[in-house]
């Protein structure tokens, strides 16, 4: 299945990766070859097979922990990761337009 340039642009947009125009062709070829390679999965009869999302889904329930505060009072530590901060605020670019 050929992959056209517009599809690559759409995928790059969805992945929020700024793929330069000069690379679009190369990425298209890569997606094409992956799909060609993945074609052979179609040989496998999976008509009555449920998809497997976790190897644990057979017999092990996921464990919930109690909903309680286990740590806190670490404002300064949390702030230490901020690219910018001002007056105790975690400063980020405007994310709601």
């Amino acid at each position, binding site marked *: 299945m050929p992959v056209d340039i517009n599809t690559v642009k759409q995928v790059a947009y969805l992945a929020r990766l700024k793929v330069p125009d000069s690379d679009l062709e190369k990425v298209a070829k890569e997606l094409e070859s992956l799909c060609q390679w993945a074609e052979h999965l179609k040989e496998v009869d999976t008509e009555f097979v449920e998809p497997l999302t976790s190897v*644990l889904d057979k017999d092990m329930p996921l464990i919930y922990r109690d909903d309680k505060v286990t740590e806190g009072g670490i404002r300064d530590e949390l702030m230490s990761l901020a690219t910018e901060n001002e007056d105790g605020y975690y400063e980020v670019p405007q*994310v709601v337009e």
Partner: protein
Amino acid sequence: MTDLVDLTIAEARKALDEGEFTATELAEAHIKEMEKAKHLNAYITETPDLALEMAKKSDERIKNKKAGLLEGIPVGMKDLYCTKGVLTTAASHILDGFVPFYESTVSEKIWNAGGVLMGKTNLDEFAMGSGTITGYYGCTENPWKRTGDNKTVLVPGGSSGGSAAAVSAGLCMCATGTDTGGSIRQPASFCGIVGLKPTYGRCSRYGIIAFASSLDQAGPMARTVEDTALLMEVMAGFDDKDSTSAQLAVPNYRKALGGDLKGKVVGIPKEYRPSGINPDVIKMWDEGIRWLKDAGAEVVEVSLPHTEYALTTYHVIASAECSSNLARYDGIRFGLRKDGKTLDEVYANTRMEGFGNEPRRRILIGTYILGESRYNDYFLKAQKVRRLIVKDFDDAFKKVDFLLTPAAPSTAVSAEEMKNQDPITVFLNDAFVCPASLAGLPAMVVPSAISSDGLPLGLQIIGKPFAEEQVFQVASIIEKAANFTKQPHRVRG
């Protein structure tokens, strides 16, 4: 006296308790070795000051008879584990300046047991690769060289290649790895050390930077089976911060070592003999089968009919999961940030500059596969085939107790040779290791032979879910029979 960096953990622990040398001296010996071996680039961040501080505390605890299982032992931590107050990079530019304020559960367990952090070991960017060649901080060198060829630099395998090289070269006594599709086992084979990928859920993934969450698992790497067992006892266990970790008691794995295999059945998967496999690998495998027979095991051939689909299945699932997991790196809350005129541009510019070629490629593939018109044909299909791969193993384990296979179809190659391989060949390198990842099974690699060109080769033991004890026992029998003593070339001064 033997050089301190050549000791096993078991030997060093005994000597530390008996006061033959101190944890500080042991750390100093390793720091010296690290300085001599800088060219290996096994560590992204070395932490000698912290190591000496931790060793000093270990010496106090040893004096007060309060030594933990790993008290005073120099440990390399794969730079995919978050370490409080120590730069954590995942070998990616996008995590520039990321100094976590929390500790991964597994590393915390290691520090609580007295382990001494020597540094954060190199890896492929976000653990994506099999050579430790894709990271932002450069390639790691394998300490091993081909016989008569001291020039060609070989890769240590990957993605836990920094850990494997550091353990092999005596830059730490053991290290942590992570394994998504072979990332502990293939480098263990390339560097002549022992590595275990535990059952999915055996170790907590909390605080380990995620690549493909349904496959990622933490595991130990060391120079002997006993040392690996010791580290595993510390790393394993339930964690209420990881809902996929198993609520099972952690056995004393060292007690499982030795003995014989009377009454046990070992399966030899007939699909693991593809063309193009190095004849030395086949020879080692045949020898391994003989060793297990000598130990009393019955050997039978088994079939894992969907093996040929494992690599594709792995690639589809891992790419899809990584595209989701890596969506969190947006330049907003931490790490690298690049400006843009709009918010979308900030994201796209940050991610384009922050991610290297390999993560970018896999994110694009994953995003493409998860698109509406491809989802059923590729992603869902791969998840269905994955169930059949799991069933193959389930069926085999009705007849056998464990499986024996080679770890890799070849010995270590150079980065140049690896780069010139077509992508399919590169992935073939993971052909023997990735099926056990898809099935979440415990699988361990033990160095078992030296190839005709002087490089290490490992055998792989695959066990039933949570049967790490059985895997350790078989590994100890192979280790003894193989009598693998050759050491890599080291810089001595």
